[in-house]
């Protein structure tokens, strides 16, 4: 294969010594190191690279940067495939495999292009007007719409690559490594400030890589770039990041940068992430993001081979590729002359230079004439031809006002068109920062106006057109930013610059065609989403005149390019339409759609970073976890904790295991890992007063050594947490909270202490993990404990129920609480975490003769339910008061105040009609109600049915030999004795309302 037939013999900064092979749509090609996929395809004469979103029109490469709307590629295959990548941003590497998208069966012949034939029926927003009949068919229509939409394909499996994130702080962050950004970095870097400079490209220097006609201090601009980069690289506090896009600008100078680390390497070394998201907090930001050239909106301006003039120049000068052999240039400004001249100098034939301006003048125009280029001033391209690539254009003379064309058309053969409609400053990051834009007549685009964050825009993103201005602004902003962050330095004079001058532009937002707009050919505005100038007119006609309505109605600017090349054209056209109809309306009043992160599409995996898989959410385990695991426990997640759920013996079901565990706890001795309960050390002379205010019951008189159960309410009176708190000494308490509530309660206590009661002398410290806790219960537990605990008298009167003692257990210093969540005689043994496993093992060993049985959270739930003890989060859901739980006994009537008190007296809270806690006994004792099941008074043949409550807890109770349940039911205790129904899908269960207590009603067992 002849191969790179559009590669120029010399020039360019590609590495000709490193040829690379790659594949596009199954065909083999060759390019060089330093190429992008786009430049390599062009080098091989390939322009047709994709099909448009809606009409499936053939499309070619339009730009040389990240603004590319057309050349969207499916890269790679298998689990490493990436949809929708821009060919202009893909660095060529050996063995690269790329494919076009959104076409079937192939790019050259795409069935979807019937849409183009039927285009008349598909104006903007057509789907809002149809597909409504019959109503039930929408899902069918939609199925096909969905299949037709979308662009590339998602991979089918897990991403084999890793992504990382990092934080970084700096004094000055500079976005953009063109001349303006480099100048800023140089000025700031020389002061010693911490500088980060990012550029999304692979080379620093920005447009200087294509604008070879510029000199700095008498030498080629690129010499200055090389020297500057070398100086910056030598500065220890300067970080230069290439292949890195500034994606987001958030509040308080927080920016995200997405660095592509391994994509260009082909195969990535294992230790490196594919991409890294940098999260930067910058003291000052300098935005030097450059400008993007605008296409011209003329009839059928979308054929492959039609590209931006600056892109053509970039392909020539940087990649040594010519987009064609006979190139037509179409422009409304001087800049495209540079492209024409550069091509001409390389021996590329300029088929003509069509200039929309009636009388272009100036040195560039003169140079073109001198070079023998045929300049056609005051002319317009009115039509283009060529099925899969442009083959000719027709030009006609523009009327004086530019609104129409006159005379006869002239055909010019060409195989590429380079167009220039002016430049749009890249204000994305500025606008994301919250900065306000202003319409500039100088550049016919929006430029930064009011900054709201510590940021400065410089260079062509700030509306500067000349290189010298870009350098000056950069140097000034760099030094000012460094000074503002405390460094010293002087503004250095800008170097001497040699550059072609620029004269006036002529904005013709729609280049007139031979027929009225929309009657012949399509004037594309948004190339990716197939939005035409006629669509903009249609939207205006139908009342979608706000720029935001225009966007949403036509999808203008909503593609993967976010309208980088189209927004200004679209809103200017809208401005013109409105200007004609509404007095005073013009472009600046139309405004711009909102700029949002990311600047260019950014890999989702990078934003997830390592916070997936094992790092998605920490799993917390107790000191005894290893033992539970070895014992074959099944686990349950409670908050972030892993708790032993039950310990099945071989062949046992959940129910069998739990029955056994419950029985053991009631009849012998059971042991539970209760470590996860929250624990808080509360100290100070006002500790008791403090508790008195946060709990509903009274605390002042609790004697040291004694413990009490407490209920905490939110200020709205709803139950928030519960637990036992013990008074260790006059001024010291040990509070326990629920497992899930631990962090919240600690914060809650601090909040009240610091904000409402700053005068209380109390210190609060979390000790949740200081202690490992083994809770033992059952008739034999006292004897067992006595064996291991020589120094505490465990007798009922020496160590009564609801008290705490300190001593040693199995030789370990311990805090022992005599409290019970099972209703049995029970001790909770707290030891420092390091001894948790040893304590557990000692208990198991000593308990062997009592058939000690470890029980998990499920058995714990059954045990407490048999006793009617509530669980916050199960019997409660944030809407339940103590009275709803029939726990009025714990709410002090005498205390003047506690958190939540007043709320309990509100009229709907004291209503007799509230749902309150009851027990439920199913008619069939073996029937276990599903937790969450809804209760009705009367079953109807069909829903709807009036619900009066729901089952909060439900188990088979081995101790009662039947099922038991707790429920919140309207009227609660007033219904005791009534039979209610629980209609489930398929059957209805009937149950009798009882007290919510099922076992050991007189509470004797806790005494052993």
């Amino acid at each position, binding site marked *: 294969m002849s191969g790179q037939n559009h590669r120029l013999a010399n020039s360019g900064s590609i590495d000709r010594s490193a040829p690379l092979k790659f594949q596009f749509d199954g065909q083999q090609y060759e390019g060089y190191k330093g190429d992008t996929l786009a430049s390599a395809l062009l080098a091989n004469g390939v322009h047709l690279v994709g099909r448009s979103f809606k009409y499936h029109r053939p499309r070619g490469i339009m730009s040389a940067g990240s603004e590319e709307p057309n050349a969207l590629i499916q890269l790679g295959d298998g689990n490493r495939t990436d949809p929708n990548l821009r060919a202009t941003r893909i660095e060529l590497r050996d063995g690269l495999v790329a494919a076009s998208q959104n076409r079937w069966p192939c790019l050259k012949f795409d069935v979807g292009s019937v849409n183009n034939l039927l285009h008349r029926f598909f104006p903007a927003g057509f789907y809002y007007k149809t597909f409504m*009949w019959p109503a039930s068919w929408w899902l069918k229509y939609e199925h096909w719409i*969905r299949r037709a939409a*979308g662009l590339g394909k998602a991979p089918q499996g897990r991403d084999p690559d890793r992504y990382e994130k990092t934080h970084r702080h700096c004094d000055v962050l500079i976005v953009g490594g063109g001349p303006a950004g480099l100048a800023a970095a140089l000025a700031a870097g020389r002061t010693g400030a911490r500088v980060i400079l990012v550029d999304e490209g692979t080379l620093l220097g920005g447009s200087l890589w294509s604008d070879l006609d510029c000199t700095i201090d008498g030498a080629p601009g690129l010499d200055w770039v090389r020297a500057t980069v070398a100086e910056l690289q030598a500065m220890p506090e300067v970080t230069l990041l290439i292949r890195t896009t500034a994606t987001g600008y958030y509040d308080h100078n927080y920016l995200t940068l997405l660095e592509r680390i391994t994509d260009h390497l082909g195969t990535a070394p294992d230790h490196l992430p594919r991409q890294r998201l940098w999260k930067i907090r910058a003291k000052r930001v300098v935005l030097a993001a450059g400008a993007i050239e605008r296409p011209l909106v003329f009839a059928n301006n979308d054929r492959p081979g039609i590209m931006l003039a600056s892109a053509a120049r970039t392909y020539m000068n940087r990649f040594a590729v010519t987009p064609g052999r006979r190139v037509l240039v179409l422009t409304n400004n001087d800049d495209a002359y540079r492209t024409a001249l550069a091509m001409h100098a390389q021996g590329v034939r300029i088929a003509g230079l069509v200039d929309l301006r009636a009388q272009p003048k100036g040195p560039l125009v003169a140079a073109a004439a001198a070079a023998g280029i045929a300049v056609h001033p005051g002319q317009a391209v009115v039509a283009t031809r060529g099925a899969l690539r442009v083959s000719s254009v027709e030009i006609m003379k523009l009327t004086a006002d530019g609104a129409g064309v006159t005379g006869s058309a002239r055909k010019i053969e060409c195989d590429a068109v380079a167009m220039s409609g002016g430049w749009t400053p890249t204000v994305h990051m500025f606008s994301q920062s919250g900065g306000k834009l202003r319409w500039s007549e100088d550049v016919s685009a929006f430029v930064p106006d009011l900054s709201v964050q510590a940021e400065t825009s410089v260079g062509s993103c700030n509306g500067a057109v000349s290189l010298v201005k870009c350098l000056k602004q950069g140097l000034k902003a760099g030094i000012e930013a460094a000074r503002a962050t405390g460094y010293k330095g002087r503004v250095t004079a800008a170097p001497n610059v040699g550059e072609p001058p620029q004269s006036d532009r002529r904005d013709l937002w729609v280049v007139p065609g031979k027929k009225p707009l929309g009657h012949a050919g399509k004037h594309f505005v948004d190339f990716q989403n197939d939005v035409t100038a006629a669509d903009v007119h249609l939207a205006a006609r139908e009342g979608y005149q706000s720029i935001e309505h225009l966007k949403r109605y036509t999808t203008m600017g909503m593609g993967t390019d976010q309208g980088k090349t189209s927004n200004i054209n679209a809103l200017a056209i809208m401005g013109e339409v409105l200007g004609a109809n509404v007095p005073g309306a013009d472009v600046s009043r139309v405004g711009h759609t909102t700029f949002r992160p990311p600047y260019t599409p950014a890999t989702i995996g990078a934003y997830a970073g390592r916070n997936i898989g094992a790092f998605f959410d920490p799993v917390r385990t107790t000191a005894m976890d290893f033992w539970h695991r070895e014992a074959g426990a099944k686990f349950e997640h409670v908050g972030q904790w892993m708790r032993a759920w039950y310990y099945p013996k071989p062949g046992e079901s959940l129910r069998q295991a739990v029955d056994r565990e419950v029985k053991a706890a009631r009849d012998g001795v059971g042991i539970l890992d209760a470590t996860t309960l929250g624990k808080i050390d509360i100290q100070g002379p006002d500790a008791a007063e403090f508790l008195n205010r946060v709990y509903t019951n009274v605390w002042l008189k609790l004697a040291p050594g004694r413990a009490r159960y407490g209920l905490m309410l939110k200020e709205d009176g709803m139950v928030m947490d519960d637990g036992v708190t013990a008074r260790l000494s006059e001024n010291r308490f040990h509070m326990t909270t629920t497992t899930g509530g631990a962090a919240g309660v600690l914060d809650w206590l601090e909040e009240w202490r610091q904000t409402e009661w700053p005068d209380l002398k109390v210190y609060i410290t979390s000790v949740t993990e200081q202690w490992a806790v083994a809770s033992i219960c059952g008739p034999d537990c006292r004897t067992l404990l006595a064996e291991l605990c020589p120094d505490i008298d465990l007798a009922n009167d020496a160590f009564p129920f609801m008290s705490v003692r300190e001593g040693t257990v199995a030789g370990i210093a311990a805090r022992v609480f005599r409290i019970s969540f099972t209703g049995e005689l029970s001790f909770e043994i707290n030891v420092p975490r390091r001894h948790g496993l040893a304590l557990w093992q000692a208990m198991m060993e000593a308990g062997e003769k009592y058939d000690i049985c470890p029980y998990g959270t499920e058995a714990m739930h059954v045990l407490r339910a048999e006793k009617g003890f509530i669980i916050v989060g199960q019997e409660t859901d944030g809407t339940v008061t103590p009275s709803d739980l029939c726990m009025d006994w714990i709410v002090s009537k005498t205390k003047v105040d506690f958190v939540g008190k007043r709320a309990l007296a509100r009229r709907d809270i004291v209503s007799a009609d509230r749902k309150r806690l009851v027990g439920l006994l199913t008619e069939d004792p073996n029937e276990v109600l599903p937790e*969450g099941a809804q209760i009705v008074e009367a079953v109807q043949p069909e829903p*709807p049915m009036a619900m009066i409550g729901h089952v909060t807890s439900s188990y088979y109770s081995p101790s009662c030999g039947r099922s038991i349940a707790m429920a919140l039911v309207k009227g609660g205790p007033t219904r005791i004795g009534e039979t209610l129904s629980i209609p489930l899908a398929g059957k209805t269960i009937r149950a009798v309302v009882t007290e919510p207590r099922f076992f050991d009603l007189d509470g004797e067992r806790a005494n052993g």
Partner: protein
Amino acid sequence: MYRQLRQPGSSNREWAMNTPVNSGGNSGMRGLRGGKQRYSILSLARNALSHHENWQRAWRAPELKPAYDVVIVGAGGHGLATAYYLASRHGIRNIAVIDKGWLGGGNTGRNTTIIRSNYLWDESAAIYEHSMKLWEGLSQELNFNTMFSQRGVLTLAHSEHELREMTRRVEAIRLNGIDSDVLNPAQIKQTVPIIDTDPRLRYPVMGGFIQRRGGTARHDAVAWGYARAADDMGVDIIQNCAVTGFLIQDGVVKGVETEKGTVRAGKVACVVAGHAGVVADMAGFRLPITSRPLQALVSEPIKPILDVVIMSNAVHMYVSQSDKGEIVLGAGADAYNGYTQRGSLTVPEGMLAAAVELFPVFSRLQMLRSWGGIVDTCPDASPVISKTPVSNLYFNCGWGTGGFKATPGSGHVFADLIARDAPNKIAAPFTLDRFSGGYLIDEHGAAGVAH
């Protein structure tokens, strides 16, 4: 005073489900009733022949008149629907809907479009199901394709606790007569092949329930459809005109001050979502509402891979794929008040990690755009549809993170409240007096993410 007494003890149940959708007359109406050009495949073809140059405006750009029977503040979906139902169901047509920006530009234009009615509490189920029934004929009624797509909303459970809460909700939904199917992990995998159902996940998919009648709609189209149909009946939609104050005499509202001058009105109805607090402040009272950023984002468009809407509370994310092909993702609101329509990066970071955790194939897709809205949340995550301390001034707000789905129902019952100066049975539980009485309709306790 603004207490509309709801009898304590009166059951909200019996009436809830069967209130006819078209109460107020004109039931069974279809299409437009004013002089507007109808949309259809035929009109599309006809217009194609004239190069689409003869399409009429979807809505006029009228001058603000000095007085209206009803002024509605806020041209979001809810405000426009209110105007539409006032005009179509109550015959009140001398209405202005005034918006400070472009119509539909508030949360209506920036939400993740999830529609469902499978709420826990009866009161919520009633209003969202009322809404669902209206959705089911909405495109035809408005003669505007809102692309209401009943592709199903699947809510996942990832722990024993969530399974229990799921049962509670599923049973309540079922007994309220609303559709709901429980799915096991295998069935979930079948429905959503790209989901990771590995039981070793940190938050394994343990089950879920699907409301098949739930789904999505094209959010902008909803605003436009209502706007066009309301305009068709003579409603004036005034854009780019902020309401800056109220005319109040002896506790009765007489009109509003706007950027374009004073407008007198018999009644004023505010439907300003995130700005409810600000607007109530102008009228001299406060609402139990905080306004916070809520963020969402979309990926680049890709060929279909996700046909149902997925919601997951534990990993904190919800996701669907739009007809254009983007993956649409959302999560919870930011933690602090704000009107910036942007939030902290932490939230998107969290939702994207959650998304990749559940859907590993998302990792290599690219985020295209992320944005925020201003959501108005009540302490109980339920809305306010109510009279206020000022007579003839009504508020509809507090829909927070989940009011898009309620658009038709909310507008429908609000119109009724305005027309009759009294809430109907569906609206009654949502009056302001619940905050003093304490009968809140707490939808975050058990129902999880409120979308």
